[in-house]
């Protein structure tokens, strides 16, 4: 009884604290000065048609570096906690047989999904999307593959290689920005090119390809660790 009263008290307190968020919410009529600067000068300064990408990769690129680090840490801790010591190799055969429809469909769909993911992160500076979204799409292809073939083995060396190379590449591009342009992660180390074309916006496409590969391989690592626990005794 006391417990329920406490829960009610906490809920009411929480609602009271955040209620002004809802009650006083009017909606914005126009952009604040910072957002106006991004909207009006973003194309000239960064060269990316997608302003969200301009903010994520260049204006606030340092935050993205931290974000990638957090994702890496999460993947590492998941791998650590789910480390399978007493692997049971005979168990694999006892998994239920996958339906033939799923196997056939996955051979067709998995490469298409990978291609869509690559398309999304290569065009991150022009259309909605980017490295994180593309990497997540690639990971969904991996889910389909695991469901179709539960005994599939991923090449851990390749995954670790992709992950570390793209992470190091991201930092190197950031440091090159200090040496060749105005500051850390400045994208003008390469020419900005024609606005709105695939090869434009300086280093943004390269950074987003690296982020896409990194996120894709990290999420695949998490999925693989979760899958491996099925073989545990």
């Amino acid at each position, binding site marked *: 009884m006391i417990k329920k009263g406490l*829960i009610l008290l*906490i*809920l009411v307190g*929480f*609602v009271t604290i*955040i209620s002004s*968020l*809802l009650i006083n*919410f*009017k*909606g*914005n*009529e*126009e*952009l*604040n000065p*910072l*957002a*106006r600067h*991004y*909207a*009006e000068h*973003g*194309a000239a300064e960064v060269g990316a*048609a*997608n*302003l*969200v990408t*301009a*903010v*994520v990769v260049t204006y*606030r690129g340092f*935050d*993205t570096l931290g*974000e990638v680090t*957090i*994702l890496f*840490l*999460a*993947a590492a*801790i*998941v791998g650590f*906690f*789910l480390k399978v010591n007493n692997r049971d190799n005979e168990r694999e055969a006892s998994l239920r047989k996958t339906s033939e429809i799923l196997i056939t469909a996955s051979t067709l769909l998995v490469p298409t999904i990978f291609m869509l993911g690559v398309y999304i992160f290569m065009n991150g500076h022009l*259309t*909605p999307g*980017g490295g*994180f979204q593309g990497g*997540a799409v690639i990971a969904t292809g991996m889910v389909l593959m695991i469901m179709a073939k539960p005994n599939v083995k991923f090449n851990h060396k390749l995954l670790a290689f992709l992950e570390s190379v793209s992470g190091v590449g991201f930092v190197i591009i950031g440091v090159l920005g200090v040496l060749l342009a105005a500051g850390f992660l400045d994208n003008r180390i390469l020419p900005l090119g024609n606005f*709105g074309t695939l090869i434009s916006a300086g280093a943004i496409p390269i950074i987003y390809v690296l982020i896409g590969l990194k*996120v894709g391989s990290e999420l695949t690592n*998490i999925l693989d*660790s*979760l899958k491996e*626990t099925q073989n*545990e005794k």
Partner: protein
Amino acid sequence: MTQFFTLEFIAMFTGFMLLVIGVWGMLTQKNLIKIVIGFSLFTTGLNIAIVSIAYIKNSTAPILDKAVDMANAGNLVADPLPQALVLTSIVIGLGVTALMLTYVLRMYKEKKSLDINSYTDLKW
């Protein structure tokens, strides 16, 4: 009264309700997986609330193309900064959810129970 039927207010209300439901779920549910779901709802509500703050009335997505004249972009697009921060927050929410589900998996292996009441090791 009309202000309650605008797009941004509906989005804000949805986010607000998801926040409250998430906290309620985290406090009352006994099943560990349901607590994780409560946390996910909380993050989703927070993201929706932030994006609805970033929305400008009658504006479009902050992508410069044929629909958005570059010279007049400041009056046509929504605020790109909160959207970029929400992108960060979604990815981190995903990582944290995966981490929590891993803990749940480990805890289940120890005691074969998903009920929070059977984990009393830290209780006094």
